[in-house]
């Protein structure tokens, strides 16, 4: 069956992983053409590190980068107090396959192509 593999990673699994483990798992999957959905997203520091690692791995032929989309972070009592907003559902895929169509407060519409764009 032809298609695109989706890896949905639970919040519990993400909480057990170190930052580097998460980033490596994301990049390895995306470079294989898979789409990764993180139930609880990444921290801003992890997102920045992911951009850095992505730039190091772009080879201009097979891998041109990633598409990342997530909902706006939610403000909770604890986030107001400590400033740490909990990450929300985040989709990460190869930039040549995933295209974000629109993003609203609680709806992300994205297109996934079977072949390379």
């Amino acid at each position, binding site marked *: 069956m032809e298609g695109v593999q989706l890896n949905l990673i639970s919040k519990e699994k993400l909480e057990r992983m170190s930052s580097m483990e998460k980033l490596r798992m994301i990049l390895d999957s995306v470079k294989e053409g898979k789409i990764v959905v993180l139930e609880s997203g990444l*921290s*801003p*520091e992890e*997102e*920045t590190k992911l*951009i*850095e690692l*992505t*730039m*190091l791995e*772009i080879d*201009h032929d097979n891998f*041109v*980068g*990633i*598409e*990342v*989309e*997530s909902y*706006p*972070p939610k403000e909770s009592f604890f*986030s*107001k*107090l*400590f*400033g*740490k*907003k909990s990450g929300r559902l985040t989709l990460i895929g190869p*930039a*040549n396959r995933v295209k974000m169509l629109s*993003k609203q407060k609680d709806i992300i519409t994205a297109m996934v192509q079977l072949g390379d764009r």
Partner: protein
Amino acid sequence: MGLITSLKARFKSMFRWFFKKDKMRIGIYGPPNAGKTTLANRILRDWTGDVIGSESEIPHETRRAKLREGVRIEVDGKTLTIDIIDTPGIATKIDFHDFLKYGMSEEEAKRRAKEATEGVIEAIKWLDDLDGILLVMDSAEDPYTQVNVTIVGNIEARGLPLLIVANKIDLPNASPARIKAAFPQHAVVPISALKGLNIDTLYRTMAERFG
């Protein structure tokens, strides 16, 4: 920003006030083609009479961070001395095919793409050595992109003073209000760096935020 983060940021700013540096290092950040170099050039033209880099409609024109030291800005009797760092645009993808449509050869486009990836890393590294950020966004584009969200989240986590510049208000479909709605926790100054619109308000706000 949370209460404790906000207190930490306030403490940091008090610390900065007590141990005030002679000059602040201000980084100009944003996605590609937001007008970062146009803004840097506008500031330098207004206060030093020269420019920092070339402007272009082709994305990733700035692929190395550029530093200009000791720029003196005087507003309402207040003097602000800053070092300006014009950084390459931050992106999550760089495809050399995107440059081909501007008439570049494949070799040239691939070289530009490679330099652009290095530029993104350099821009991120510079965040460790800054005292404040001007985050430039294109008012005619959707501000709620992952790159903007990531930069804002990172600056908040570092407790650095941030000023969002809603650029390109001279365009017919510009909507700085959309940027204000997307980032209500931060000061947003609508300007046109190209035409110089509302630029005095930007200098006044910079003096308040970074002075």
